[in-house]
């Protein structure tokens, strides 16, 4: 009998055989409905629970990767925090660790975390509780962005109902963070919780060694924790049943499609299938911008057969990031779209690292010239040189990600670039922007 089968026989709800696994059609799912749908929370002392060290092994076996953008193996991160917590202190006592659930979702093109939290708050809270037990945490935080309207109330009320049901084995504090793009980076969250400015920090020390309150800290995206809550119930082989072993993922599909929104897909689903689910293009398509603003571009004709997974999208010159796909129509100019986004990213610099706060505005200016101005080959040469001057030279990945997006733009829109440098900007630069840029009048989130 399979693990999932054994657990189902032990009185738990049957594992979902089809997608969606995470997001119910309506919500928020109340605690009773949640427990009916997924079964009881498998704490280590529960009859069919996997137990403390077992959960970390199961998460490792599942191959679950972080769903906040970086894609780091979730089990490896948990093991590092658990080990750091077990290091004996001077009094030979075990140090309690901390769990931070990251639901701040600062990628302008992403709404999947907000939707997950609004529809299935208890799945995320289960994930926090189970991860906390596995890494020996004594306190937990759930970070939300101050603009994620109403989600904080849903979560606070969910935490209260768990209190009444005796499911809160450690305090979970909801923390509202402000700030922009880099404020949800994991060292920024640690800094904010520690009373700092909420800006990225230099590593080492990594949060897994020394994070919130100086304690070993596990920072996981809320979707990652929701998957973890299901792996704890149904086992790693159940998780691997879809997506060729990679599992499922939430993606936000935006831009010129008939039904923009959040979709849960089996990783590796061809982009054409997902595009069909999203109702197809609303006008003649040109390209897909994938992976958020640390991602890249794929020409439409090259994109249809691409598997929507990190390896699949990387092979095509982009990435999965936090699961963002935007269809950009032929009526838009790819150079202008990127110039607007890089202008936004340059404003997001925390102003801490010289190569970032000097290099990003310089890159934004160069791209603006190439898109809207009278740029020549020298501008292109300078833009290209800037890419190598900013990549890997910041404390966080803002410079690297911005350079990657710009590099992808110069590659994919090389023909457009040739026309702009020869004859000036095309007419399409005046079209309202497709890629969402907060605070910009053209925003279409």
């Amino acid at each position: 009998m399979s693990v999932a089968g054994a657990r189902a026989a032990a009185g738990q709800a049957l594992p979902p055989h089809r997608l969606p696994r995470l997001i119910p059609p309506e919500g928020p799912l109340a605690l009773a409905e949640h427990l009916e749908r997924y079964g009881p929370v498998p704490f280590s002392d529960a009859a069919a629970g996997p137990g403390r060290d077992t959960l970390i092994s199961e998460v490792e076996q599942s191959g679950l990767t972080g769903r906040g953008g970086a894609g780091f193996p979730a089990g490896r991160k948990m093991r590092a925090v658990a080990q750091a917590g077990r290091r004996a202190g001077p009094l030979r006592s075990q140090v309690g660790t901390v769990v931070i659930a990251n639901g701040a979702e600062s990628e302008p093109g992403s709404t999947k975390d907000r939707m997950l939290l609004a529809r299935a708050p208890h799945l995320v809270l289960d994930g926090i509780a189970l991860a906390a037990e596995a890494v020996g945490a004594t306190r937990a935080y759930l970070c939300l962005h101050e603009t994620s309207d109403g989600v904080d109330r849903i979560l606070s009320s969910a935490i209260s109902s768990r209190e009444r049901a005796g499911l809160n084995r450690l305090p979970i504090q909801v923390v509202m963070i402000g700030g922009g793009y880099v404020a949800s980076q994991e060292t920024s969250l640690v800094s904010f919780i520690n009373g700092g400015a909420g800006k990225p920090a230099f590593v080492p020390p990594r949060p897994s060694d020394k994070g919130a309150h100086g304690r070993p800290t596990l920072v996981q995206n809320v979707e990652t924790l929701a998957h973890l809550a299901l792996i704890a119930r149904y086992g790693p082989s159940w998780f691997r049943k879809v997506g060729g072993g990679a599992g499922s993922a939430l993606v936000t599909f935006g831009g010129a499609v008939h039904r923009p929104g959040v979709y849960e897909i089996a990783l590796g689903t061809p982009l054409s299938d997902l595009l069909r689910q999203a109702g197809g293009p609303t006008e003649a398509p040109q390209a897909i911008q994938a992976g958020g603003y640390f991602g890249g571009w794929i020409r439409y004709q090259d994109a249809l057969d691409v598997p929507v997974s990190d390896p699949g999208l990387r092979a095509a010159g982009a990435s999965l990031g936090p699961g963002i796909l935007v269809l950009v129509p032929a009526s838009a100019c790819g150079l202008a779209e990127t110039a607007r986004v890089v202008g936004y990213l340059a404003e997001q610099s925390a102003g801490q690292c010289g190569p970032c706060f000097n290099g990003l505005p310089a890159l934004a200016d160069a791209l603006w010239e190439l898109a809207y101005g009278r740029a020549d080959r020298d501008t292109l040469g300078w833009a290209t040189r800037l890419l190598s001057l900013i990549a890997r030279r910041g404390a966080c990945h803002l410079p690297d990600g911005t350079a990657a997006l710009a590099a992808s733009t110069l590659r994919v829109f090389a023909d457009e670039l040739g026309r702009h440098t020869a004859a000036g900007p095309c007419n399409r630069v005046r079209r309202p922007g497709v890629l969402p840029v907060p605070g910009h009048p053209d925003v279409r989130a």
Partner: protein
Amino acid sequence: MSRRTARASLRVNPIACQAHGLCIELLPELVRADPWGYPLIRQGPVPEELLPLARRAVAACPTLALLLARDD
């Protein structure tokens, strides 16, 4: 790996670095200036014969932003 043969690399803490440029002056073999005066470090382990000079550059940094770390 013994301490004698351990390889080490230079790294900049970009938050601490304020482009004073002492490392660029003291260790031009491995550090040059970017257009804004911040150090660009040559990638890879520091050659054995440059280790004493690298240590001197690390010690001279007024913001303790230059680090010499053993490669793991």
